């Protein structure tokens, strides 16, 4: 099995790395791929909450590295989707508990056993980022259409290039077309022009992301939300399939169509 190991990173915090990791993992699993999502944010774990698997954690990534358990024992299986597993981070330890070499060894054990390994990198450019990124074959850089986010993403891309990472691709998250049209938000092309890497996908701002995150039910478990469609398209492109670059409709357009649908009872 040819395992692909991705790191989802950004530099800046709060841009949606964990949400992207959870939803892409779910969507890839729904497409029949075997997937392990690794929470690389040791000490500030969140991926388990977003994936709704918090209550089933017994062992963590640090336990595996310290040989307190076997890798198979630490993998939490998602019962809603076949072949989806979470390797949770330890909340009570710090990023110093793991080094880059140990992360590489861990990923080497997963290589060959799964189709995809997706590592959720912590924010920042320090040890946590290095641990998460050195173990990966490819990087997905998440940026929101804000100047500060773009600058941090640019920094991260420079560091990834210095590590020799190729095929680093960009995901623009939380785009609001109405604000873009009114000139109050950077457009996708503004972001991708500065960062000068291939665009993998665009995710619209979607209130249902907040709801799903709080409920621990990733949007990608179903197809109804606009963001879920965007996650699906990104997952298809990760698999090498063609998928449309959906241009999210404006918030006003969405409201209009939503109103029409309600009137028609659909």
């Amino acid at each position, binding site marked *: 099995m040819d395992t692909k190991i991705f790191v989802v990173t950004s530099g800046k915090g709060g841009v949606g790395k964990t949400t992207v990791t959870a939803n892409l993992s779910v969507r890839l699993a729904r497409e029949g791929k075997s997937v392990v999502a690794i929470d690389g944010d040791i000490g500030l774990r969140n991926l388990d909450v977003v994936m709704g698997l918090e209550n089933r954690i017994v062992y963590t990534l640090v336990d595996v590295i310290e040989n307190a358990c076997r890798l198979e024992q630490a993998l939490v299986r998602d019962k809603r989707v076949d072949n989806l597993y979470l390797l949770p981070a330890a909340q009570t330890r710090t990023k110093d508990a793991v080094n880059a070499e140990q992360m590489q060894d861990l990923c080497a054990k997963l290589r060959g056993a799964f189709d995809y390994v997706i590592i959720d990198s912590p924010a920042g*450019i320090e040890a946590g980022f290095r641990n998460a990124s050195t173990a990966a074959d490819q990087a997905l850089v998440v940026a929101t259409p804000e*100047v500060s986010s*773009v*600058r*941090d993403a*640019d*920094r991260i*891309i*420079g*560091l990834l*290039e210095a590590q020799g990472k190729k095929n680093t691709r960009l995901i623009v998250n939380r785009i609001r077309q109405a604000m873009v049209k009114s000139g109050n938000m950077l457009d996708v092309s503004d972001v991708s022009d*500065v960062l*000068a890497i291939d665009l993998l996908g665009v995710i619209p701002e979607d209130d249902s992301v907040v709801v799903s995150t709080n409920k621990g039910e990733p949007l990608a478990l179903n197809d109804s939300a606009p963001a879920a469609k965007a996650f699906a398209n990104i997952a298809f492109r990760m698999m090498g399939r063609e998928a449309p670059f959906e241009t999210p409709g404006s918030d006003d357009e969405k409201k209009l169509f939503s109103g029409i649908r309600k009137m028609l009872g659909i």
Partner: protein
Amino acid sequence: MPESARASGIPAALERFVAEKEEFLQNASVTVDIGRRTMTADDLLFLVGTFMKVPGLRVRAWRSASTETVRVLESAGFRVAKGNGAEPTDSGQPGGEAEPTLLVLESMRSGRRIEHAGDVVVTGNVNGGAELIAEGNVVVWGDVTGLVHAGCSGRDGAFVLAGSFGAPQIRIGRKISYARERADWGTVPVLLRIDGETLTAREMADPCFKKRSFDQ
């Protein structure tokens, strides 16, 4: 210090200057220009001792128009900046033998810093968060949104030529200028240089060369 100053008064004046400006000099990177003065090995030892008292001060290079002083510096293993026989010019051309031009065949991403003793040409962008510090002129084919300092050793005749310019600050020679509002020059090539006492930017695409002044 003026070259006409009496040699006997220089050590005390220098010590006073360093004491008064210590906060400014801390962690600074400086070029020491001796001018036409003739410096002995003892003078050199005194200068080094004085500079070493300032935490973090880095002497990037020494300059001198005196052959004897250059000999003293080089015999002690110090780096003497090329073109040391000439005064800084305002012509935009470095005097004497120039450092080779540094060619950067890519964009400078955030967090990257380049320092060069001569001219620099960047074929990509200088992105926000990147820093390009040159003793000579700077030419950037792409967009400049990061920090560029041309003529960093004090050469006010240096210039910056950018494919487009949107940085909040620009430094040329001894001047630091900032945009009153977020600079928005679109995609028009811009030439930035000091005109008299004012840092000016000219839109190169306009045949009339629109000119705009920056806040100093």
